[in-house]
């Protein structure tokens, strides 16, 4: 049965293998070059010419990066559509199930073999793409220091293996329920997206209790004031923690509360009189030369207020990868068990 399952699957398998080989060749050719550039970057400080190296990394690798990421991102969904959905539905649609299920092989073994061969291949294909991409992109990943961003988290390391298992099982389930290939493929894509997008948006940040850190505003770079039609207000930009997943950041006073207009009026009179910006345009005084009124006001704010950060720290990256892969593999197992039961009991 394994041989025949493979024989029926061969053409589809070769097609995806072709894409993987194309990426492998591209990665193998360009990868070492970027890796050596990155090596130079660690030693360039002494010579003092780091910008040109950084530029060639950013202009080179970062240009191709999105294409490879996009493929790795959509691959599990495509596998679910083109490998999972037709697996049983095509047999039902074309009537060949009457041939397949009356050979000297029980339906139980038929389904389990199909699950193992095609489901296993899905995980293998997505895993291969992910590992190749992870290896190739490691210089730019290190440089960007943003591994928790969904484009990297969802396309690299081990999470895509879980996504592929899930997408495949979803496709197979849609196929046995619809009994027709095209609606099953459409359903697979729709449900896959409808699960994945809310998952990384709403579920992933909550998988573990975030770490809370209180920071003095004296050391924070990305803060300042903005003049709007309503006057001057205090702004604090997103805090970029290297490789971490930011959950929330807020400015909290010792006795609670925020930096209000009124508070600024009471404590930073000099700042409010500063400059002559046109209203509505908004003037950020966050960079460049900082007038004394600015630094005075920041110091005053820092006495009363501090920044509270909640985030998933960088060292949880692998834990999150494992958790997410496991969740999707469990979902895949549940769907597989359901479609196995459905094929054996309900299509009868």
């Amino acid at each position: 049965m394994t041989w025949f399952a493979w024989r029926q699957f061969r053409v589809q398998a070769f097609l995806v293998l072709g894409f993987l080989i194309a990426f492998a060749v591209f990665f193998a050719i360009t990868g070492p070059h970027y890796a050596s550039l990155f090596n130079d970057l660690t030693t360039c400080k002494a010579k003092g010419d780091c910008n040109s190296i950084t530029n060639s990394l950013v202009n080179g690798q970062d240009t191709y990066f999105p294409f490879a990421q996009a493929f790795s991102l959509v691959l599990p969904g495509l596998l679910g559509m083109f490998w999972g959905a037709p697996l049983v539905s095509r047999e039902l649609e074309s009537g060949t199930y009457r041939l397949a299920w009356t050979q000297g092989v029980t339906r139980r073994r038929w389904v389990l073999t199909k699950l193992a061969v095609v489901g296993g291949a899905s995980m293998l294909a997505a895993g291969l793409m992910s590992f190749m991409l992870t290896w190739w992109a490691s210089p730019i990943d290190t440089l960007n220091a943003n591994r928790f961003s969904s484009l990297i988290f969802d396309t690299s390391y081990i999470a895509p293996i879980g996504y592929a298992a899930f997408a495949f099982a979803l496709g197979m389930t849609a196929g046995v329920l619809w009994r027709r290939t095209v609606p099953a493929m459409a359903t697979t894509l729709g449900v896959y997206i409808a699960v994945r997008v809310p998952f990384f948006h709403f579920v992933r940040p909550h998988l573990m209790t975030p770490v809370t850190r209180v920071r003095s505003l004296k050391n924070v770079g990305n803060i300042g004031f903005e003049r709007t039609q309503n006057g001057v207000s205090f702004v604090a930009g997103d805090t970029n923690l290297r490789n971490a997943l930011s959950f929330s950041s807020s400015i909290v006073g010792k006795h609670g509360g925020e930096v209000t207009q009124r508070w600024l009026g009471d404590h930073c009179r000099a700042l409010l009189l500063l400059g002559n910006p046109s209203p509505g345009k908004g003037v950020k005084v966050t960079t460049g030369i900082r007038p004394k009124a600015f630094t005075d006001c920041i110091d005053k704010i820092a006495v009363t207020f501090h920044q509270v950060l909640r985030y998933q720290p960088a060292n949880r990256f692998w834990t999150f990868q494992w958790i997410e892969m496991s969740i999707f593999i469990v979902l895949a197992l549940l769907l597989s068990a359901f479609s196995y039961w459905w094929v054996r009991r309900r299509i009868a």
Partner: protein
Amino acid sequence: MIFALQATDLGKRYGRKWALSNCTLDIPTGHVVGLVGPNGAGKTTLLHLAVGLLTPSTGAINVLGEGPATSAEQLGRIGFVAQNTPVYESLSIETHLKMGAALNPKWDSQLAHRRLHDLGLDPSQRAGALSGGQRAQLALTLAIAKRPSLLLLDEPVAALDPLARREFLATLMEVVAENDVSVILSSHVVADLDRVCDYLVVLAAARVQANGEIEDLLNSHHRLVGSRREVDSLPPSAHIVEVSHTERQTTVVVASEDPILDPTWSVEPLTLEDLVLAYMAQAEEQRRELVRTKVGES
């Protein structure tokens, strides 16, 4: 005694509609059985129940003394040719034979290749490029190379032209002659069955109307023709199958083990086709009656 097919109060329901109901059959081994009935009578349902593609809603079915599709061995003992003879269009004939070899414990590769050779089929040809007759022959080859003890065929010749039909049935007869195999063959064309079958099951309106060896059926069924009258004067041992009246004549088809001795009837033998048509007409009349009653009620 092991029966080729044994059904007890077998029924299959789809939603509220019964595709097959109250089906009780004991078909002995060693026959070529014709399963005849109009389209939608439940022939495919019965055969799918027999190979385990369907599970019964009521009752039970056994083939060769075992539940259908209960084990790989059981599946291996049954050769099945489904309606419209499905094959994998993108795979070659050779690949189909490899599939048979990989999936069936008693696969006879020599037999399969010899048959292809006899049929003049090129093993490298894609199954999707075959004619209807060739495809049916491929499906039959796949079924008989399993070396089955029971061969089930669902309308195998329905889609074939007359020549392909004759060749297919001739092949089937060869197989029966050379092997110890029971055959159940469904068709809505009585003429096909007349040529090859020695046992008949008449299925109409989701029920078994008659079944038995063809010789016995023909011996026990008679057509009575006489002047126009009511038919309640017939002996109670005679089961009335169909009654029709013209202005002056009454014609009755009866099933009776005892000879009809009433001299006011002229007794004629029936052909197989007459017999089958009589049962189908009766079933159709009952169905119409049922619909009329329902419509009348509402």
